[in-house]
């Protein structure tokens, strides 16, 4: 799982049926401690209603996403939003130093 920031939406008419049950958001991965960009922006399926520039927790569990979307075994989606991090806290030792 990773944290990211919602930076937009993608709309599509012709799509796999499993994608009709959520919205497709553009999510930029960010480092949970430094908030710096951490990889390429990706498209993530959202069922929670995350808004623009909100911080979210993304899960890469394809089977979990399939269940979340009430889709069949043919569901070709991997990433989904597991939480909206509007209020959250992270505890580390030494500021996350290894």
């Amino acid at each position, binding site marked *: 799982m990773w944290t990211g*920031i919602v*930076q*937009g*939406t*993608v*709309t*599509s*008419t*012709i*799509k*796999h049926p499993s*994608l009709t049950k959520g919205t*497709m958001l*553009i999510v*930029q991965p*960010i480092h949970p401690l430094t*908030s*710096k*960009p951490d*990889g*390429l*922006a*990706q*498209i*993530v399926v959202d069922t929670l209603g995350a808004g*623009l*520039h909100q911080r979210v927790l993304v899960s890469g569990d*394809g089977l979990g*996403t*399939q269940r979340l979307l009430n889709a069949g*075994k*043919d*569901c*070709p*989606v*991997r*990433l989904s939003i597991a939480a909206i991090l509007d209020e959250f806290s992270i505890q580390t030792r030494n500021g996350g130093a290894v």
Partner: protein
Amino acid sequence: MYLAKVIGNIEARIRLPGFDAQKLLLLQPIDFNQQPIRWVVIALDCTNSAGIGSIVTFVEGREAANPSDLPVDACITAIVDSWDYKPTNGIESPGR
């Protein structure tokens, strides 16, 4: 999932039986400013609607094989109508 532009297709005479029904397309992944990222990907078209020039979304990994049950690791999941990209101040995708 990433965005990609369809830049070609691949046909093979000798192939696994399941590949008869669906097309294999050559994708150039792009970022949300339409700049190319990564390297070219070959993906199965699960929508059966993409053609050269289409902008699509594609998924990689085990989930890509779910719709077809064929040994593929990338598949097109949607034909994109439009997208709305508003990068947060100071936080933008690093591109390539």
